[in-house]
């Protein structure tokens, strides 16, 4: 639930950012680009508000993580709207280093708060949307009740002419209505132009028809309702009402532009006169959302008249500039991005953690990337990394250049039966950055004494042991599978957080850990060694202190899984102590 709230908020922020960007660029395009472009560009913003598609690293996505981590360390209370917006202003340009897997503040918060937020949001969004629909229905019924069909052949012929001119195939109904003062068009699929009851000149009528039919041709009703959906979903965002206003305004401007493209100067003036004549009489029934009208307000009309008189055909360079800016804005929309829940794993591969807890200066780094294999890490005797493995089955790459030690192991065959365990010898020294990645693999590594460890485990069984006197940090996410973490000195001097974001499965944690909503926290001594572990997907996680750990505690199904799937031999309670260290 909290993830949903976060995605929604990040959509809101990224939509608002894009909105402000386009508004900010307005002086650049206002008098140069076509009104049509200025109208349709808002679709990009509307979609940014609605769709949580995003590339891996994005501005808003990172902002939300920053916000999350800031909330952990500074205990900022979550009042999302305001704080997030403050964040956007000063952190936008900073390089982004924070890793997504860092446990979020939100996860410490009581679950109820997010359920509550979610219900408030959805209830209001629903009420708003239903209200908009009923207002629209009420309006069209009100109109229907007062309608008299226009059967004057001359007027119908005039409408037909306009339809032909605009190449509209759908038959458009035409009626009079004494309840309205300004012509409108209603209906999505069976459009109907409604005229007020008053004497209208043929010229006036044809301008009205062309204007309303152009609305129909531009599918403005659908656009307006798309915007209404965005407004309902983001009702809490003040910028959304700015978007609504801009779209309504540019809708009329774009429509006018299309109408006058074929008119000469005299006709333009006449068209303007027609607009003015309808402004004088106000509609009896106010509803700007329900339909597309001819005129909406005096202030706006002034802008429209100005645009009508200044209308110029666009030349080639403007067309090119328009395409360039469009491309730029679409790219911006993508780059701004949103917060997502699961793109973190992809990120973590690329970016090592920056962690303030341990000075990594001068210490070698270690990167271990394994997939589709079983590996037992053993201490190397000669300060060199080496491996014992079947080269027919496995592909092992060891790179010890600089102080950047990298090992990557993968399986050559597509069906690995895991019938042998690779012995990987790694020097037991102090490391700086340590990156451990295991995908569909078995990994035992039980002598880590130092380092900022980033762990990403996917469909893997991983057994990590932090040696006595461990100095550093651990950030690990285990997505489906088994993850076991043992601290030989019982999490001394650590701030440990175990987060449960997973579905089916369980977490076993030491008794002295504090539990809240399935998450665990523990603090001891200086608390300098920060350990964050997150469980995702399906699977079991076991967190043990040195003496409390006893493999006979394992749940039965995991013993079965171990013997059937992983090892193919019967379960032994002390296998993990003995079996890997036989030689």
């Amino acid at each position, binding site marked *: 639930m909290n993830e949903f709230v976060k995605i929604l908020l990040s959509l809101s922020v990224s939509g608002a950012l894009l909105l402000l960007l386009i508004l900010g660029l307005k002086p650049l395009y206002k008098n140069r680009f076509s009104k049509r472009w200025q109208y349709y560009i808002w679709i990009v913003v509307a979609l940014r508000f609605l769709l949580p598609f995003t590339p891996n690293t994005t501005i808003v996505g990172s902002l939300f993580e920053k916000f999350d981590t800031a909330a952990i360390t500074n205990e900022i209370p979550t009042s999302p709207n305001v704080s997030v917006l403050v964040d956007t202003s000063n952190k936008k340009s900073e390089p982004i280093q924070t890793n997504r897997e860092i446990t979020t503040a939100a996860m410490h918060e009581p679950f109820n708060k997010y359920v509550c937020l979610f219900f408030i949001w959805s209830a209001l969004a629903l009420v708003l949307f239903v209200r908009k629909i009923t207002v629209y229905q009420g309006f069209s019924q009100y109109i229907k009740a007062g309608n008299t*069909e226009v*059967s004057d*052949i001359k007027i*119908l*012929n005039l409408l037909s002419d306009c339809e032909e001119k605009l190449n509209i195939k759908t038959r458009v109904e035409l009626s009079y209505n004494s309840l309205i003062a300004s012509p409108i068009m209603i209906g999505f699929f069976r459009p109907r132009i409604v005229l007020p009851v008053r004497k209208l000149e043929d010229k006036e009528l044809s301008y009205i028809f062309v204007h309303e039919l152009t609305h129909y041709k531009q599918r403005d009703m659908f656009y307006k309702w798309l915007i209404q959906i965005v407004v309902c979903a983001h009702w809490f965002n003040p910028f959304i009402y700015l978007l609504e206003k801009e779209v309504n305004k540019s809708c009329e401007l774009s429509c006018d532009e299309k109408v006058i493209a074929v008119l000469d100067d005299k006709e333009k003036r006449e068209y303007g006169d027609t607009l003015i004549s309808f402004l004088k009489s106000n509609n009896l029934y106010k509803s700007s959302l329900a339909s597309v009208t001819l005129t909406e307000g005096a202030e706006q009309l002034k802008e429209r008249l100005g645009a009508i008189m200044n209308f110029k055909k666009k030349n080639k360079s403007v067309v090119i500039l328009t395409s360039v800016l469009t491309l730029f804005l679409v790219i911006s929309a993508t780059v701004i991005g949103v917060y997502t829940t699961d793109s973190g794993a992809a990120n973590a591969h690329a970016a090592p953690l920056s962690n303030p807890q341990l000075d990594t200066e001068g210490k070698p780094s270690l990167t271990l990337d394994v997939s589709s294999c079983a590996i037992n890490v053993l201490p190397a005797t000669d300060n060199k990394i080496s491996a014992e493995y079947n080269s027919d089955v496995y592909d092992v790459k060891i790179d010890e250049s600089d102080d950047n030690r990298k090992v990557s192991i993968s399986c050559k065959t597509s069906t690995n039966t895991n019938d042998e365990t690779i012995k990987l010898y790694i020097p037991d020294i102090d490391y700086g950055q340590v990156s451990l990645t295991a995908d569909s693999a078995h990994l035992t590594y039980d002598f880590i004494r130092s380092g900022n460890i980033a762990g990403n485990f996917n469909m893997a069984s991983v057994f990590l042991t932090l040696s006595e006197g461990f100095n550093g940090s651990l950030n690990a996410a285990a997505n489906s599978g088994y993850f076991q973490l043992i601290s030989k000195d019982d999490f001394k001097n650590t701030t440990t957080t175990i987060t449960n974001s997973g579905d089916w499965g369980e977490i076993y944690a030491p008794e002295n850990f504090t539990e809240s909503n399935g998450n665990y926290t523990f603090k001891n001594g200086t608390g300098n060694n920060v350990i964050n572990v997150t469980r995702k997907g399906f699977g079991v996680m076991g967190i043990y202190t040195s003496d409390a750990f006893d493999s006979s505690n394992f749940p039965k199904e995991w013993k079965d899984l171990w013997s059937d799937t992983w090892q193919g031999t019967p379960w032994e309670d002390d296998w993990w102590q003995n079996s890997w260290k036989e030689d």
Partner: protein
Amino acid sequence: MAQQISESELVLMKIIWKNGGAALYSLIMEELEKEKNEWKNNTVLTLLSRLGEKKFLKVKKIGRKNEYVATVTEAEYQTMQTHSFLDKVYGGNVKNLVSTLLRQDILSADELKEIETFWREENE
């Protein structure tokens, strides 16, 4: 009470009745041209579809062409209209209608006699 047919709609209905109660769109347009009516395609389509909504016409698809079929005959329509007119204007009283017709010389005495004879023969 059935819905009213507007004047221009009646023009179309008459063409269809004249053609035996069914007509293709192209034929309707031809007839309109003969009568020197300059009606646009969409105008005619609008009127035809209004007649359809009022259930005076049914649309039959013949391949890609539409045939418009009248659901009432001209006589039925006249009866319907007469009743409606009588009810509305004369409160259903035929005597008042006839006396108006006579007084305004719309109906001559000879014509009235003719009607009387016709009526008697019908009822014998």
